[in-house]
């Protein structure tokens, strides 16, 4: 028997138990699941291979690598092998390749089978794409983890310690690039999420133009250009890096065996190392997502029966104001919520005043998660609040929706009153136009109401009743947006044009503020000549460049994309306000919701503070007179602003 074949035979005899165990776990279990599904639903399928491979694939690679190295590198067996007429490199390479083959067979075959089965089923394009991504990207991660564990096995030679050290390294390989933004493009999870294996035909590329190219971050492959194929540059970079590191690992392993290098480690060191890596990763997560803002005071909302309640909107002036509360009984659907108004005075011993329940025909309509401006209130007329009510109906013959109600309600907040005391019908002024959204804003005692871009301006009399002063039919808000990015998708410049509210006696900043506050379907805010726009993909700051008539042009001055970890946590910004160059963004995500503060004064927007409210939804907020922030969720939180807000005023550093 030739020595190469003999080595292969020996390795196979040693490693086949790993193969059997791997097949039982990674193929046997999905098979069992498929049988159970077939028994109950008459369809033979299993969704577990991808999860099993993603969760336990790395652990299996570690066990195989440590298993193939540590046994033969024990003192006596190692001496025996070195006395044989076989070159050490052949022995090490055979070991490496046989182990790697077992890892790849056990971990790739189940996913490939699942991929094949998904392709047979109709309507599973998304799953097929995801499985292809896992198969393409995660396989290289497994090779890297196997190679690193192989080196560790050769250097340490004690199985339990080698497994622990390899586990620490695997944790770093999987999670460190995801947690540290500069290493973003080396994270396997980021690459899987980018759909890298989407093959793009040249014709499609030409149709899509540069935007398409920028979006997919593609690179031309010389040897495949005739086929018209392009691949994601991040995937290529990842493959090259994992390949180089794996080769380097094999060389180090060979050198370690040849020169008998050994790392003398103890149990304590190994466990502290593993714990240290775990804590490092956890602290990196905490640094990016954790809270650092101090809560000065929390005020529980008055309970209303067994249901849950949250603050839908706050209208305040100083320490006083009105809360629009959303009340839900247990088991109610989202649409079944009822609304009520409650006055508050934070300086008083008993902060909450009377609660006024709104009847079905008085309740505001929230048309999207970031919808705002449903009530306005002013400290000048504290006994009155104003609310807007619109409703739509479907016209059955042609299926079109039309507005059948549009009213400005005046609600008395005085003790003993209940419900609105005055209704101002706006429907005749719409003249058949459909109002898909509505919002209110109050500035210096004047109420501005926007109904799908048509602006109504009201003066408020001494008796608190609003009087319609003017209707502006030209649609106000964003009239254009443009931007340019580089090949990696990084935004280089952006500008925005706004049609401003034309108000007599108003400064440009006030007109800008009104326009921004009344804009629909955008989470925006302004302070002076700065406008901040935020959504789940970015936060941008614009500065007013010029105003020509009613048209204002703004240029982007600062920009930030969420980090990979923030994207993974899920961002759902629903409200923003700006004070002294800091943007206070309220996020209503279920698990990672809260208030996040960004410094928008520098071109690179920095995250300077966060206050997490992980168990609360319907979060909204307003700045208070003393500089603190009032947040309304399931309770009221008064939060201290970050240090950056306390040391800066109007963009200048204040000496303390």
């Amino acid at each position, binding site marked *: 028997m030739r020595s190469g074949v003999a080595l292969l035979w020996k390795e196979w005899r040693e490693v086949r138990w790993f193969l059997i165990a791997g097949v039982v776990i990674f193929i046997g279990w999905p098979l069992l699941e498929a049988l*159970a599904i077939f028994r109950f639903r008459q369809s033979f399928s299993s969704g577990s291979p991808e999860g099993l491979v993603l969760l336990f694939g790395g652990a299996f690679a570690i066990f195989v690598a440590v298993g193939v190295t540590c046994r033969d590198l024990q003192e006596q067996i190692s001496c025996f092998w070195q006395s044989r007429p076989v070159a050490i490199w052949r022995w090490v390479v055979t070991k490496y390749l046989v182990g790697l083959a077992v890892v790849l067979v056990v971990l790739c075959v189940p996913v490939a089978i699942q991929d094949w089965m998904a392709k047979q089923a109709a309507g599973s394009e998304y799953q097929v794409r995801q499985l292809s991504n896992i198969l393409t990207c995660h396989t290289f991660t497994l090779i890297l983890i196997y190679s690193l564990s192989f080196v560790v096995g050769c250097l340490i030679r004690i199985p*339990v310690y080698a497994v622990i050290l390899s586990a620490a390294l695997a944790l770093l390989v999987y999670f460190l690039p995801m947690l540290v933004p500069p290493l973003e493009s080396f994270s396997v999870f980021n690459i899987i999420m980018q759909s890298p294996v989407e093959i793009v035909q040249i014709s499609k590329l030409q149709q899509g133009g540069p935007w398409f190219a920028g979006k997919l971050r593609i690179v031309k492959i010389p040897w495949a250009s005739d086929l018209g194929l392009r691949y994601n540059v991040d995937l290529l970079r990842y493959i090259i890096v994992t390949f180089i590191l794996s080769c380097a690992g094999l060389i180090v392993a060979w050198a370690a065996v040849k020169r008998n290098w050994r790392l003398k480690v103890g149990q304590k060191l190994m466990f502290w190392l593993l714990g240290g890596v775990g804590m490092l990763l956890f602290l990196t997560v*905490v640094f990016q997502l954790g809270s650092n803002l101090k809560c000065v005071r929390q005020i529980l909302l008055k309970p209303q029966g067994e249901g849950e309640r949250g603050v839908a909107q706050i209208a305040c002036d100083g320490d006083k104001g009105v809360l629009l509360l959303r009340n839900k009984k247990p088991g109610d659907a989202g649409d079944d919520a009822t609304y009520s108004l409650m006055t508050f005075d934070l300086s008083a011993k008993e902060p909450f005043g009377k609660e006024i329940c709104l009847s079905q025909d008085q309740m505001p309509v929230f048309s999207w998660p970031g919808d705002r401006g449903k009530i306005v209130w002013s400290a000048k007329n504290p006994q009155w609040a104003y609310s807007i009510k619109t409703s739509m109906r479907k016209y059955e013959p042609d299926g079109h929706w039309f507005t059948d109600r549009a009213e400005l309600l005046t609600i008395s907040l005085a003790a003993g009153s209940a419900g609105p005391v005055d209704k101002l019908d706006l429907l005749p002024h719409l003249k058949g136009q459909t109002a898909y959204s509505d919002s209110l804003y109050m500035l210096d005692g004047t109420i501005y109401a926007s109904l799908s871009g048509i602006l109504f301006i009201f003066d408020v009399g001494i008796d608190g009743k609003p009087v319609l002063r003017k209707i502006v039919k030209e649609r106000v808000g964003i009239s254009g947006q443009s931007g340019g990015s580089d090949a990696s998708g990084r935004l280089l410049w952006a500008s925005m044009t706004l049609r401003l509210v034309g108000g007599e006696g108003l400064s440009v900043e006030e007109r800008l503020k009104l326009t921004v506050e009344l804009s629909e379907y955008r989470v925006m805010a302004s302070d002076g000549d700065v406008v901040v726009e935020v959504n789940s993909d970015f936060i941008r700051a614009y500065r007013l460049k010029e105003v020509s008539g009613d048209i204002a042009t703004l240029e982007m001055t600062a920009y930030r994309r969420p980090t990979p970890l923030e994207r993974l946590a899920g961002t759902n910004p629903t409200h923003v306000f700006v004070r002294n160059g800091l943007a206070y963004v309220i996020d209503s995500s279920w*698990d*990672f919701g*809260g208030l996040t503060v960004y410094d928008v004064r520098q071109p690179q927007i920095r995250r300077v503070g966060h*206050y997490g409210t*992980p168990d609360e939804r319907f979060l909204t907020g307003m700045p208070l007179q003393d500089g603190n922030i009032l947040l309304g969720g399931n309770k009221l939180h008064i939060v201290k602003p970050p240090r950056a807000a306390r040391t800066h005023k109007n963009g200048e550093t204040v000496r303390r």
Partner: protein
Amino acid sequence: MIKSLFWKEWCEQRWKLAYGCILLMGFVAIGLRSRLVQDDIIIIMAAGGGSVLMALLVGMGLVATERGEGSIEMLLALPVRSWKIFAVKMAMGALVCALPIVGCMVVSLAMAGGREMSASRIFVPYLGGVAFSIVMLVWMVAFSVRQPSEARAGLVGIGVFMGWIFAILLSMLFFKPPNWFGLVITPLGILVITFNWMYNVLEWLVAVQLALMVCLLLWGAYRFGKEGMVKV
């Protein structure tokens, strides 16, 4: 003599106690302070993950290290009954498993008591964690008491844990939910029942697990003192 045995075990195991306390209490303190996720998620992660980690860490080094280093013969040659040596080892192991989780409970109560969860709501998951940790230690040591190295003891521990998961999953094929059989028969039920406040099978769970634990302890003590070669 028993006191000396306790002292010996304490000297060997104290770094694990420090390790568990620093890691788990640090995790709880940072997690609750940073309000990364809801308090109950942090508490369940600390109680569940901590109990498995501590049981594995302690179980690996309790008997297998003595066999690996060859000191078991000297230990058994002492003028003390072997079951007493085993009992001292298990008592110290249980203490090292339980104390870090109790520490986490104290940190949680100090930092988040009454914030999102009441004190009793915080107490129960940690109680479940302590109980599970001790039960897992007993299972692991009973099955790995004849293993000649830490690596093998660790693998036995992982195997026992995977076996419970497999038993629960297998029972799901035959029993429709709620699958009380799977919860009562394996120690994982302790975590599931205490974390989810399902007390209707608590008596059964306690009775079954106590009975199993006593049997395993007796079996482990018998095998600990048994003479003969250990297979390598």
